[in-house]
């Protein structure tokens, strides 16, 4: 029987959860360089669910696809350390400025090339919080989508049973394969790196990375071809330029404003007994509390 192909869509994101003072430039724009790049948290939950699916199926392989600049290859190495079999980096200047629609178009072209039976991705990425790329990719490859998934209940080569986490409860659904699944942050956290895999794959590189390290003439890939991380461009996935980047994005950013707050007239207090006493008396008097 043919192996079941499981694909994880993962993204490298700036860590917007810890935005420090130096993260904003004086003109109010974002200083991306000051933010560490991390594996998008929900995507790690998605990777775990994909690995669980592989564990249960046995006869399966987990691939990782990420779109981003050269350094996003870090995401692929991290995935491989944790158990993924192989990864592809989708990288091209022409992707720059893509909104969710243009992004999902590019991803869908790469997905068609990989031809998976199942796709897992995080519910949303912390740099945009849109939760749009999963469903939009599903539509473009004509897969049913199951979103907000918290638990993999059962899987066979033909169907999958999943528990979804909704606002007011849970729902269990059965879907045939193929399908695209977006994984909620409340799902199982991702397993740790496997030390053996780290030793085996720590030199895994894209060609561009090797060039940047001035090792393009090294025999690395000749001796150990499994260390080569594939880089795919617009041409590799046969995408139409006009659907990519700024020109392929129906949403345009009209303006970006840094936030200027109108100062409200306020009462400034300290933590002294007298001040806190005044505060509580004030609140009780004005019947805000009590």
């Amino acid at each position, binding site marked *: 029987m043919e192996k079941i192909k499981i694909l994880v869509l993962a993204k490298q994101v700036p860590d917007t959860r810890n935005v420090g003072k130096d993260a904003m430039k004086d003109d109010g724009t974002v200083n991306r360089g000051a933010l560490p790049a991390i594996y998008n948290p929900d995507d790690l939950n998605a990777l775990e669910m994909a690995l669980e699916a592989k564990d249960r199926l046995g006869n399966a392989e987990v691939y990782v696809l990420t779109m981003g600049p050269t350094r996003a290859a870090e995401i692929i190495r991290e995935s491989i350390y944790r158990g993924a079999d192989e990864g592809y980096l989708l990288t091209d200047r022409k992707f720059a400025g893509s909104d969710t629609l243009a992004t999902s178009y590019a991803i869908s072209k790469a997905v068609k090339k990989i031809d998976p039976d199942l796709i897992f991705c995080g519910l949303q990425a912390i740099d945009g919080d849109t939760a749009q790329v999963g469903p939009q990719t599903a539509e473009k490859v004509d897969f049913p*989508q199951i979103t907000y998934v918290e638990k993999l209940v059962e899987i066979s080569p033909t169907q999958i049973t999943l528990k979804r986490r909704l606002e007011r409860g849970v729902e*269990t659904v059965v879907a045939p394969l193929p399908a695209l699944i977006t994984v909620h942050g409340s799902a199982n956290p991702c397993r740790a790196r496997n030390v053996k895999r780290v030793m085996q794959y720590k030199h895994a590189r894209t060609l561009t990375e090797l060039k940047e390290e001035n090792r393009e003439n090294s025999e690395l890939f000749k001796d150990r071809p499994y260390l080569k991380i594939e880089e795919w461009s617009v041409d590799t996935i046969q995408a139409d330029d006009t659907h990519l980047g700024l020109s392929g994005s129906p949403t*345009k950013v009209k303006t970006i404003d840094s936030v200027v707050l109108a100062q409200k007239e306020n009462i400034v207090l300290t933590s002294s007994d007298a001040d806190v006493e005044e505060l509580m008396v004030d609140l009780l008097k004005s019947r805000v509390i009590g």
Partner: protein
Amino acid sequence: MKNVFVYCEVTEEKRIAEVSLELLSKGRKLAETLGVKLEAVVLTDQAGDTLETIQEFGVDVIHLAESVELFPYRTLPHFRVVQAIFEKEQPEIALFGATSVGRDLAPRIASVLRCGLTADCTSLEIGDHVDTKTGKEYKNMLYQIRPAFGGNIIATIINPETRPQMATVREGVMKLEKADKKKVAQIKNYKVEEILKPEDLVITIIDRHIEPQKVNLKGAGIIVSGGYGVGSKENFKLLYDLAAVLGGEVAATRAAVDAGYAEHERQVGQTGVTVRPKLYIACGISGAVQHRAGMDQSAKIISINTDPNAPINAIADYAVTGDLMEVLPKMIAYYKKYSK
């Protein structure tokens, strides 16, 4: 044609979701500004008296699709029917609640129609746009306004060329306002069995159970909220103590939730819950836009922060500069002393 459409979500209790009624209220204003009609889309098994509710919001047309396949919500049947309605009606604007339904459905619709969609808008306005490169003028665009990048900037997004202009909005962000006069809406019925194909029905729901939310932030009159500055889950206990004494609920910022100090249901902000309590006590909260978007309509705001220049102080009625570990116990003590 060229009208404002609102996808009306049907709840477990077969009522129109609060967020959809809020969007109908906002949609009516947008439609008035543009001089077009307001149209509602309702997909359910049996509409019953939900249509009555919608009529109170000044809707001109209700697109109604009734079928057992449409309740409870499943992605593909709803997707296929909404796609059919939109392809026929060519809406100018289409609004969805940013719920697990709206955030599942809207992107798939935007993808098939190849149009722009902006998630979690905190404000929607109508305005003009001039393309700086081509000089081309665009009249009456929908400004989709949202905090971006961890809430440190506010972005205004437009879709100059594609229609509908789509946006999702969280519950509690727009004000719920019924129309002054009740209007009798025209009802357009759809034959669902002619729209759905067998492949739209491949997913089956085998179990659903409702777990009512334990935390009710929207209904709380007093909210004691903590940020990353609270420092630990243990320190959060002080916030629970104060909330218990005052009869309020405990909330948290996204940073505090991400750090594991509080549960996700307690998150206030653009991607959490929007609240308007009579008193909001912000403890160790710096005040990123993304958080303020969810609480700046509070009647009274107290900020407790060691940093006298914390941005949240700008919208606070009382700004207490000090350590919350010191201030909160004092608040509890003085409350007990004077409330009797």
